[in-house]
């Protein structure tokens, strides 16, 4: 056994600012070999930035990094890698045109004729395949990465990092696109790595999963360390208080909505093999959850209902009117809205002002006499900014400058402004910190109370259990169960969701 107090990494007094904005302010952090250090904090606290400094992507303005007591200077990712520090980045960082094996060994290909830089492809594939098998990931090393599901890509990214890690491995929200099944595999690996004496820094907003693996924790708030200590020394409430700097009442606030008539009804929706024969309805005042494992087809389904993706057959009825023309503009006109899973790709126009992003789905409302009235736009945006508590409240600031949670809130604002009354929310809290999450939940409740129909797609089962009235479960494109949220459990949902092994 390794000595568990063997300090593998020390980051001392790290400060960093981006064009005048201080993001990190004198952060000191220690990671021990054979231990998992949980790094937690609100959105925008500086976690990823700190880790990117460690991996050589960013250079600190001041401070130093010590590996095994030795002071090192990383001017680029290659330096950190050769010092044995590997990182799983928050945004996937793989090349979709390359194969799985090529990605795993990118930058460190085994060579055959070294002076020519000639790559030994046989070795490359054999080694990758056996690694994947060792880790229990069922992925063919020769598959082109672009063909893998988001979850599988995440697993490749994990494999890649583990192979590279010699001393320390950083995982920045590695589970954000994984479901419980894969999370378990990952945790098994992490325990393995601990045994091999690696230090692990683990970032996550899913506090409950940290219980399983974390040994110590460091809490960041506004770029400063506000707490460091053993995991479990303080209660979750206290932890959240440190993170948010204030008291948080309940994560899942109660809702008192009366359930009314059917607002959204879908019948026999098909686009095989993504989803087949899907029928369900959502009523006014109701919050329905849609659960399933990664790749179950939930995202495909809601995007098809919204008209952003094709549908092979089936009917979609909004407020009693059948939609026959599947284009997103038709859906929006009829009061349907989709909060997409990936806010960077399909959500926000990052370099446009916050106000323009909020009003985008209903610019029509701002136009009178053919002229887009800017004053009206600012007023409307300000109202929603206040209502949703978007920070900072500046409508003319590009939305890309906001932190993740606030970006998510501004997307929600867009659909509120669109005067929608049917909401499809796909992973509405992905990557959002606890405090911001509870604000979003509160908002969803208000919507339901005002008579809207809400469908929440989420991989976070506690969230579904806490928010939904009913929970639909999808497995491999089929609706396999409808459960009453008050009477079901995570285990029951998983039993339906899990793909039976063949």
């Amino acid at each position: 056994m390794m000595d568990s107090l063997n300090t593998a990494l020390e980051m001392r007094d790290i400060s960093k600012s981006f064009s005048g904005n201080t993001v990190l302010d004198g952060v000191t952090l220690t990671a021990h070999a054979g231990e998992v250090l949980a790094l937690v904090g609100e959105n925008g606290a500086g976690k990823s930035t700190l880790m990117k400094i460690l991996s050589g992507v960013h250079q600190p303005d001041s401070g130093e990094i010590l590996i095994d007591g030795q002071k090192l200077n990383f001017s680029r990712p290659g330096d950190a890698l050769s010092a044995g520090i590997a990182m799983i980045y928050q945004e996937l960082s793989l090349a979709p045109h390359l194969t799985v094996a090529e990605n795993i060994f990118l930058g460190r290909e085994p060579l055959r004729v070294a002076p020519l830089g000639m790559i030994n492809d046989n070795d490359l594939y054999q080694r990758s395949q056996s690694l994947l098998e060792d880790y229990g990931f069922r992925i063919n090393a020769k598959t082109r990465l672009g063909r893998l599901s988001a979850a599988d890509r995440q697993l490749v990214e994990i494999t890649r990092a583990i192979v590279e890690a010699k001393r320390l491995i950083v995982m920045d929200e590695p589970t954000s696109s994984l479901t419980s099944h894969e999370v378990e595999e990952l945790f098994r690996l992490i325990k393995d790595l601990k045994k091999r004496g690696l230090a692990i820094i683990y970032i996550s907003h899913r506090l409950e999963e940290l219980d399983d693996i974390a040994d110590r924790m460091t809490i960041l708030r506004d770029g400063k360390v506000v707490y460091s200590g053993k995991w479990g020394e303080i209660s979750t409430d206290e932890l959240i208080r440190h993170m948010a700097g204030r008291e948080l009442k309940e994560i899942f606030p109660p809702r008192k909505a009366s359930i009314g008539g059917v607002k959204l009804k879908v019948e026999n929706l098909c686009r095989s093999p993504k989803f087949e024969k899907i029928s369900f309805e959502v009523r006014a005042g109701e919050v329905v959850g849609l659960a399933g494992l990664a790749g179950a087809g939930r995202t495909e389904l809601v995007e098809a209902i919204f008209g952003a993706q094709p549908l092979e057959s089936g009917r979609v009825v909004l407020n009693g009117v059948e939609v026959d023309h599947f284009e997103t503009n038709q859906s929006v006109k009829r009061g349907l809205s989709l909060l997409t899973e990936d806010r960077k790709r399909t959500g926000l126009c990052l370099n446009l002002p916050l106000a323009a992003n909020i009003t985008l789905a209903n610019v029509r409302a701002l136009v009178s006499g053919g002229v887009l009235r800017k004053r009206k736009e600012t007023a409307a945006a300000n109202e929603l900014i206040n209502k949703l508590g978007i920070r900072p409240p500046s409508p003319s600031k590009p939305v890309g400058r906001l932190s993740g949670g606030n970006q998510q809130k501004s997307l929600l604002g867009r659909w509120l402004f669109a005067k929608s009354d049917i909401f499809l929310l796909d992973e509405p809290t992905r990557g959002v910190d606890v405090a911001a999450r509870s604000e979003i939940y509160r908002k969803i409740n208000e919507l339901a109370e005002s008579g809207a129909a809400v469908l929440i797609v989420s991989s976070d089962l506690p969230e579904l259990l806490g928010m939904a009235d009913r929970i639909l479960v999808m497995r491999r494109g089929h609706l396999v169960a409808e459960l009453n949220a008050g009477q079901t459990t995570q285990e029951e949902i998983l039993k339906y969701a899990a793909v039976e092994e063949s």
Partner: protein
Amino acid sequence: MPDWIKRFLPFISLILLCALIPLCEYFVLGQDPKFLTLGNLAAIARQTAVITIMAMGMTMVMVAGGIDLSVGSIVGLAGVVGALSMTHGSSVFTGILIFIAVGAACGLINGAAISSLRIPPFIVTLGAMGIYRGLGLYISDGNAIVGLPQGFGYFTEKSFFGFIPLPLLIVLAIALIVHFALGSTRLGRYCYAMGSNIEAARYAGILVSRYQITYYTILGALSGLAGAIESARTVTGQPNAGEGYELNVIAAVVIGGGSLSGGQGTVVGTIIGSLIMGVLANGGNLLQISPFIQKIVIGAVIVLAVTFDEFQRRTFESKEA
């Protein structure tokens, strides 16, 4: 106040240039400066009108994240067809409408191909560039169309109040309209949204394809109008007219702060970009600088302008990322 400098950088360069040229005329050539005479300014207006008009449309297309390499060929094709219509008896007015209609049709085809085939605009319009040019040459059998009504020439030579050339008024009118459209209409708002993130625009319920087609059609129509002015200037329909203009037009947008990746660009910036290039060429001729050196200077100006711009953008994005 870097944002301030950024916004005015092209403008400042233009002013500096306009001051520098007469100084050189006086001190280097030892002549009376002719650059700032009304006659020369009117000449610059006429010389840059064609590029500026096309660049107005290109601003829209590029803000929306697209690009159109075929505009120069559209000038040629519209020139040939419009000129032929006039030699076949249509009036000057009808003729000009035909120029515009041919341009709009080409733009419509580009836009429809881009949005339906879903292939990159660079490719579609690279192909279209050859197709339209070939068509123009084929229709005219490679000859200039001559024998146009004399009144057509007046279309560009006419001046108001003795010194404001008609093309300048046309440019101003179009600039005002496009400026208004980009800044204060849905058409313009969607332009920026699509250029910033086209998927996001689609998911926000914008019928992306329809707007794409609209922007390319507007650019096509403006290129057709530019073709009319080009034709009127030489009172012929030259099948080779507009060759290479696409790069000048794109350069004007880019010097004016437009971005190839979309979401950025303004009418005022583009006009300044076009003027900078026009003034460089005119000043080069007045100062008797070799056209070869002029090529080098314009190339360098493009790179420098975008370097400044990108530098500004990076400091901004590093805040955002």
